[in-house]
């Protein structure tokens, strides 16, 4: 199934931030908890060859635009940024509470379509998820 990312929404300006924040960055107003599906579009990404202490090199960091304009920072899997283009649609999944993005295959696109159409394609999702896990197997990330 599609990852659910915890977020929060400002009742004043409707801005959504992920992960959730107590107050809107633009208004002194308490935000309301919400969630977003773990899929979006690559806004930008970078690769660090001398990452900070606790992270393995090379370290991929991406800025992803989720639904409703919320932007999210996560890692890319080791082999995933080669040929990656800005604007590409990617899936985000959590592994041990750390978020990673990956390219969307045909199955993923189908599953996204079903999600948006309001039908959960559970069986397909289960297959996609196991494929994703296999791709990520062996990938490690130090630090918090």
């Amino acid at each position, binding site marked *: 199934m599609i990852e659910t990312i915890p977020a929060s929404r400002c009742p004043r300006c409707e801005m959504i931030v992920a992960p959730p924040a107590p107050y809107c960055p633009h208004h002194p107003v308490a935000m309301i908890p919400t969630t977003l599906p773990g899929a979006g579009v690559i*806004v*930008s990404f*970078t690769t*660090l060859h001398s990452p900070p202490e606790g*992270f393995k090199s090379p370290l991929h960091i991406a800025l992803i635009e989720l639904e409703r304009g919320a932007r999210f920072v996560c890692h890319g899997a080791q082999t995933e940024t080669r040929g990656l283009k800005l604007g590409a649609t990617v899936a985000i999944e959590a592994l041990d509470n750390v978020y990673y993005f990956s390219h969307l295959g045909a199955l993923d696109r189908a599953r996204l379509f079903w999600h948006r159409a309001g039908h959960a394609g559970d069986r397909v999702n289960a297959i996609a998820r196991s494929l994703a896990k296999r791709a990520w197997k062996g990938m490690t990330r130090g630090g918090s």
Partner: protein
Amino acid sequence: MRDVWIAGAGMTRIGKRSERLQALMTEASLAALAVAGIEKPDAVVIATMNPEEFVGDGNFASNVATYMGFAEVPALRIETATSSGAAALYAGFAEVAAGLHRTVLVVGGEKMTHLSTPRVSEIIGRSIDAYERSYGATMPALAGLITRALMARHGVGLREISQVAVKNHAHAARNPYAHFREPVTIEAVMESRVVADPLRLLHCCPISDGAAAVVLTSERAAVRIAGIGQGTDTLAVRHRHELTSFRATQAAARAAFQMAGLGPERVDFAELHDAFAPFELIALEDIGLVPPGKSGGATLDGETAIDGRLPINPSGGLKARGHPLAATGIAQVVECVWQLLGRAEDRQVSGRVALAHSIGGLATNNWVTLLEAQ
């Protein structure tokens, strides 16, 4: 509001320095006070970004004021991350403009080169949003994200970005105060090692020690602070909708131009915050010094070189003069004052209106200052 004038300016040579931070800040202060012909100012404003972490001292306004013989002079410390020097200038400006003090010494400094690069990066990186830091985001990492987006959106290529570094190194080669005195070729920049793809080592400013100071006064002098503006933005880069322009710079420039009652077309030369070479291109457009989308071309065409239409960073900028954090915002103003007074020797440009632009954090707290020769 009273007019505020700069009666004296001074700075240390920037680079790896063995002296204590207090000694560097005193050297810059005494140089500025000597030019102003003032032994003791009415007040002191001090800028340091992380003295607790870098040199292990706190209560730093009193620490520095006492060290240089101003134990009885009212002193305060201002901090807005990497733009702390510009923020301190604003505080000193406000004190004089409000009539609270007649002469104010503003001095900024930082001492970092005695620590390892990873340690310095980690300390500077604390100015970044904690969640983004937990994913390994450092200043170069976030600058890398911005650079990739910039290269996609404006058609700015590696060559345009690299030329900023080539130009600023060439300027610094003429500046005896600069950290780097050696010119670099565009090939060397483009082939230097990747730090945060697509940013390479020679696109990034060095870790530097140094200090800079100005003496502000309500009495007429040769250079006036015509305008000074602050602009802010969200701490987290993911909370912004724009990556390839900085709201904080745009707001600061608007405020500074409004106070000065003039527009960007009146600026003759500028010192811009090029901690990463592409940031100079972004600043040129955010401030309105070149039209949107034209900064890369203007740089390649030599318009922003020391002998061009609009010299940018005649000092060498953060890129090559060096970036001793809280000293930088004041060092930029010192360079502008020297240029306006015709005292910039081998790197002299001509002009009556100068602009200094300083970025705090990842463009969360930025400043634009306009200086006018009378």
